[in-house]
């Protein structure tokens, strides 16, 4: 088990050094950055580097972001106690450590949800979003009165980390087939419960 030994050395090593970069920011500014960062972790936008370009260099910024990601994921994913988090933080000064703990407490549930979502999406292709438009074809070049409803379904897929959009148009029968297939799948899921 080579990986195990590698893990344990890394655990308390570089991570806490990177976290120490946080001390460059004043403790009053710190909570804002942390909360914006957690926003990013939960699927919204991360804080912008431009706003902090005077505090950190690009490399430092990247390392800080990485280590913060690590920290929050580990702390929330393992339901660590305050003490354990303190250990992870190493010798970070107390004001900043407090800020991190505060933020962690406030956002624990939200981060947990985000992590659960991440775990849910472990298959190679996942559905990110879907949208539909219903269209009524009133007539065609052959028929003056067609009156056929058509569904335009667009799926936003994430295939191996790459966004891909799938669009399809279905008439009533095809839609019924799709819905019955989905319902059958849902039944299987319900049986698992």
């Amino acid at each position, binding site marked *: 088990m080579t990986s195990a030994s590698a893990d344990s050395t890394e655990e308390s090593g570089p991570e806490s050094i990177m976290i120490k970069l946080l001390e460059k920011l004043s403790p009053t500014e710190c909570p804002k950055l942390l909360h914006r960062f957690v926003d990013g972790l939960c699927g919204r936008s991360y804080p912008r580097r431009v706003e902090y370009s005077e505090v950190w260099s690009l490399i430092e910024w990247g390392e800080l972001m990485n280590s913060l990601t690590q920290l929050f994921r580990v702390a929330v994913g393992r*339901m660590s106690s305050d003490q354990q988090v303190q250990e992870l933080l190493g010798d970070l000064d107390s004001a900043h450590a407090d800020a991190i703990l505060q933020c962690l407490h406030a956002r624990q549930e939200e981060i947990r949800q985000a992590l*659960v979502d991440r775990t849910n999406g472990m298959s190679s292709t996942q559905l990110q979003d879907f949208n539909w438009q219903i269209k009524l074809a009133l007539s065609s070049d052959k028929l003056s009165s067609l009156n056929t409803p058509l569904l335009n379904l667009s799926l936003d897929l994430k295939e191996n980390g790459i966004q891909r959009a799938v669009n399809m148009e279905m008439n009533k029968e095809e839609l019924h087939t799709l819905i019955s297939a989905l319902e059958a799948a849902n039944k299987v899921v319900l049986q698992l419960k």
Partner: protein
Amino acid sequence: MEEVDRILIHSLRQAGTDIDEDVQSVKQFTSELIVEAVVRCLRVIDPGLGSGVSTTLPPGMSARFRLGMSLAQACQDLGYKGEIGYQTFLYSNEPEIRSLLMFLVEKLPRESAEASDQPAGKSALLQKAIAAQIKAQLALPWLPPSCRLPLHCKTQSPGPCHSFRAQPLSLPYSLKAPSKKQAKEVKEYWRVHLLPVTSQPSQHASVPASLLENHVSELSAAQEWENEWNSQGLLSRLTPEDYRSRKRARLQKRIEEQLRTAAQPRPDTHGATRSTSDLTELLNSFGGTATGGDILTKGTRFTHSEKFTFTQEPEKAAQQMAAAASALPSSHQSEEDLKAKQEAELSDLQQQLQQLSVQMEEVGGDIRQLTVSIHQVSDELKQRELSNSEKQDTVKVKKQTIDLLPDAENNLVKLQSLVEGSAKRVVHLASQWEKHRAPLIDEHRRLKELCSNREMESSMKLSEIKDLHDKIRHSAEEAKKKESLYKQLITEYETLPKDVSRSAYTMRILEIVSNIKKQKEEITKILSDTKELQKEINGLTGKLDRTFAVTDELVFKDAKKDESVRKSYKYLAALHENCTQLIQTIEDTGTIMREIRDLEEQIETENGKKTVSNLEKILEDYKAIRQENSALAAKIRDG
């Protein structure tokens, strides 16, 4: 009559008759128009009746006659009571036509009034809405994009160009998070750091999408929970929290089982060993009560929490990649050397691997055999131990009896007394037990009954609750339906043409009614006047008769004595007779006057019937028929 005619003409136009604008009353109706109106009405009232006849008068006289006959028959079939025949249509007179048309118009179905009670079909509404929208859009002129007002943008731009992308939002009030007391830090976060929801998503365009998505997910979660709670949760008689925790435990167990079965070691494939080792690690961490520190040293990157929030850390993959990379030779030798070396190494390694796997299999087989034999041996051992302890017991008993043997008599007596004592004690205890038992059993029964009662009650209440739930849902649905109907009716009412004719009609009707009332009053007044006059006349006649009789008697008495009085008696008689004649004459004049008036009225009605023109027409038609007949006869002769 004008009012009636206008209504009649309006109704006939609605039924589909083409009536000219300058036709104002029934008097102006020609035979063609009458036939068309009647046929159209018949078609609307009963399509089976009216479809056989044409709306226009044919040129041939006999065909006209036949058409009139069939129309008259159709009207009688509908239930028209008045006089009707072919002459009604061909040689019309105003009152007859008016009564016939009134009858037909009354028979017209009032479908519009009935149809509006029902909500119109959804598809019809949709079609109407689409038609209205398209009409409105067609009415707008096309404008170049730079000149468009917001009004035009909606209809003339090619539609929204951004796609529907949702992002998770952070809201203080959420169903996902339990609504219990929130920690101080959370409140602080809400107060100071939480952005307004409109600026939370990274793109402004995805605000509505995100909000909708958030709402929908919470709504569906709440609905699902409610459904489940109503169908299964209530029956389990647990509090919601208990039910949830029980379900969670069940699910946890299930997933564990699944993973365990999937992680059964399968030595046949090489690739599987890696994954199974991962899985066993996972299982260890999963079922284990290991502390956090343990997990850290173990290095498994799977953590578990109450709700399986095990997340795979990305660095795990990174480490594996790094391990793979370090395995690669990093020397910069020539490629061929490298390749040869690699191949040699590869084959070597493969050989080693095969050997190792063969060894592994062998050792595995040995282990399996050994475990089986260990099982067998341990079973044997257990059996031996059992038999051993049994034997020890028997040895003890036998030893005691051997000890007692020397002083057998005394010991026997002692034993007997002991046995008796214990028997008595047993009886005593049994009676005591009985004493205690009876009330306890009673208590037990009572409690059981109570329990079953409670259960019944609770099940009754459960069913009641279910009923109530159903009712609530039903009434909500009904309310929704009613509301939509109400809305629809309101819109329909607003779109209806604000016709003044209706109010005018009602005003007119009210006026007519009041007129009729006035007339009735007058009639009663005149009647009472007449009665009074009659009475007066009767009274006067009676008085006259009596006065005449008395005078007659007195004068007659005196006339026997006096000659001059006799003369006056004669005058009296003559006067009386003349007066009677006069009265008679006046009465006769009255009756004659009345007769004259009747006759005048009759003349007027006869004049209204256009007799002369009709007669002329009849004569012409008669001539036409004779001509037709002669022509037909000539044809026969020729043929």
